[in-house]
């Protein structure tokens, strides 16, 4: 039982980060139809900027806030300088642009920061909490709680604010949205800024556990993308479920099967799900109207 709980919490913690990355994917995908492969770099920026601001003597909460602001600015710039000028281009072109942007961001981070690994202190101490025999880092609760708050906040924003509904409207039908007076360019910028902020929050929450460096974004983007696909691209609930599921698959795979094949195991399950339901667990069936 203790073993099971240990795997469960370890899986949920890692999964919560995947879920936040997947949410970032979802937000931008919904607003623009673009899969933003620079999403992982926002996680990196969140962590790295906090580390360096904190090291410069700024209190941790302020450093974290600053990192979120920096990431939002980068997200907006990415939209303004790279996505917006290529407005008419096909989704594939835009996706390639985001891949280029992620390489650029990584390169700049390598120069501005450095190539070493860094850590942040845990928000509320390092002493593990014992839950029925499973040792849990207090930071895990921060990650889970933080992810919960972000998900809830996003839900309230999308469902209960006019601006949020405008995002949903843009997602549903860009032309119609424009016809009813929604500035879709602003909405797109909002989506990029928002998803940068979500990424940054994930980076800040998880750095005390996983450490960070200039190149942590690549793998997170890949895992987050897999999570988003598993849950169904474009569905916020799917992104969260997909992320948590992927984290749990990895943890239980490593714990009960073999640690050598845990990634293979996780991706195998994803493949099976996608064969059975190509639109993902919660995805909408795309109907090509003729």
């Amino acid at each position: 039982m203790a073993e099971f709980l240990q795997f469960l919490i370890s899986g949920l913690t890692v999964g919560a980060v995947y879920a936040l990355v997947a949410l970032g994917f979802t937000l931008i995908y919904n607003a623009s139809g673009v899969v933003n492969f620079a999403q992982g770099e926002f996680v990196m920026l969140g962590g790295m900027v906090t580390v360096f601001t904190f090291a410069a003597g700024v209190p941790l909460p302020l450093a974290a806030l600053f990192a979120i602001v920096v990431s939002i600015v980068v997200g907006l710039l990415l939209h303004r300088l790279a996505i917006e000028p290529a407005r008419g281009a096909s989704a594939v072109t835009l996706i390639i642009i985001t891949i280029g942007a992620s390489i650029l961001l990584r390169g700049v981070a390598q120069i501005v920061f450095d190539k070493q690994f860094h850590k942040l202190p845990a928000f509320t101490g390092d002493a593990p909490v014992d839950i029925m025999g499973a040792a849990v880092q207090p930071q895990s609760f921060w990650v889970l709680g933080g992810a919960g708050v972000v998900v809830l906040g996003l839900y309230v924003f999308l469902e209960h604010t006019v601006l949020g509904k405008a995002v949903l409207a843009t997602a549903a039908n860009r032309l119609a949205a424009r016809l009813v007076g929604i500035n879709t360019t602003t909405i797109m910028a909002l989506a990029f800024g928002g998803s940068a902020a979500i990424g940054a929050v994930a980076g800040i929450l998880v750095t005390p556990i996983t450490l960070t460096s200039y190149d942590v974004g690549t793998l997170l983007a890949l895992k987050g993308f897999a999570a988003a696909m598993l849950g169904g691209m474009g569905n916020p609930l799917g992104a969260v479920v997909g992320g948590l599921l992927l984290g749990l698959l990895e943890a239980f795979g490593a714990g009960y099967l073999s640690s050598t094949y845990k990634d293979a195991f996780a991706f195998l399950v994803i493949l099976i799900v996608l064969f059975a339901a190509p639109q993902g667990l919660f995805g909408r069936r795309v109907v090509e109207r003729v």
Partner: protein
Amino acid sequence: MKSPSTLKFVLAASALGFSFAGAAQAQETIKIGSVLSATGPASFLGEPEDKTLRLYVDKINEAGGINGKKIELVVYDDGGDANKARTFATRLVEDDEVVAMVGGTTTGTTMAMIPVFQDAEVPFISLAGAIEVVDPVREYVFKTPHTDKMACEKIFEDLKKRNLTKIGMISGTDGFGASMRAQCIKVAPNYGMEIAIDESYGPRDSDMTAQLTKIKNTPGVQAVVNPGFGQGPAIVTRNYAQLGMTGTPLYQSHGVASKSFIELAGPAAEGVRLPAAALLVGDKLPENDPQKKVVTDYKQTYESATKQPVSTFGGHAYDGLFILVEAMKRANSTDPQKIRDEIEKTKGFVGTGGIVTMSPTDHLGLDLSAFRMLEIKNGDWNLAQSGS
């Protein structure tokens, strides 16, 4: 390869005839080549190597060079890419016509470059870790860093002294971790070690509690060995403490032998042991230690010039450069063949990595005494009391 070099010789000779002054000038420098991974994923290895080489070549030249000739250092950055490394190696041999090469940051780049230097018959002192570089022995290939096999042996030697024979292993699946894991499994029987459980983790994994829980629940495990480098071992160490496993000794490898490991792992690193070069504990070595002077001098020179903490990787480049320089002094020639012969005759060379004595069958020249068993105490390296 013979005829082009003969041709070049003829051309050089005729050039000598036409312009004696120009040729005399060319005679005054000795070209040493280097291909390093100063950028890219292995940059934490390549960067200190690059800085060390440049720093010391300048120093040697200021002091008058080798036998009155200045060294000209030609450095290329392969970015960790084995294909690029091979291209640069060819350029060093064919265009730059270096007399010797000190470089090859990773095992991958080194293995790609070996054929080039073997064919051109130019001595190549590699800075890569794996034993494959010098086993089997190749005529023109040498290396300075300790091998992962030696690290395993050093760890097992220490375990045996502490009467711990049943171990768990958790290894990174990156090149370094996988290679060391294989070597450890190979030499374990020689020390009477029983590997009760063998786990692994991906190089970018961020949580190893699942694997460690399995090790924790394996009955009879007396110690845990973690071959790997990068951030993985730091996370393993932190998870290890989180799960309350610190009652079982944890051994890391020389792959984490840099101050940043202690920083990243934090208080969880207390009591962790690892084999590493004397360089890390220079100030704690007894005064009569033969390596004391070399390592403290290097540490001071490097740190004052670069404002960065010293790492064993830069030390490998220091050793490689000076093994070469001393061989060239002894050879009193810039003929690659003669330099090669003298490198092989290196005897009792005191470097940062240990005391090097090479032979025709040993192109590494280090024994287990080159490794010191360190224990992390109060956030710093300390020499472990053997047998305790």
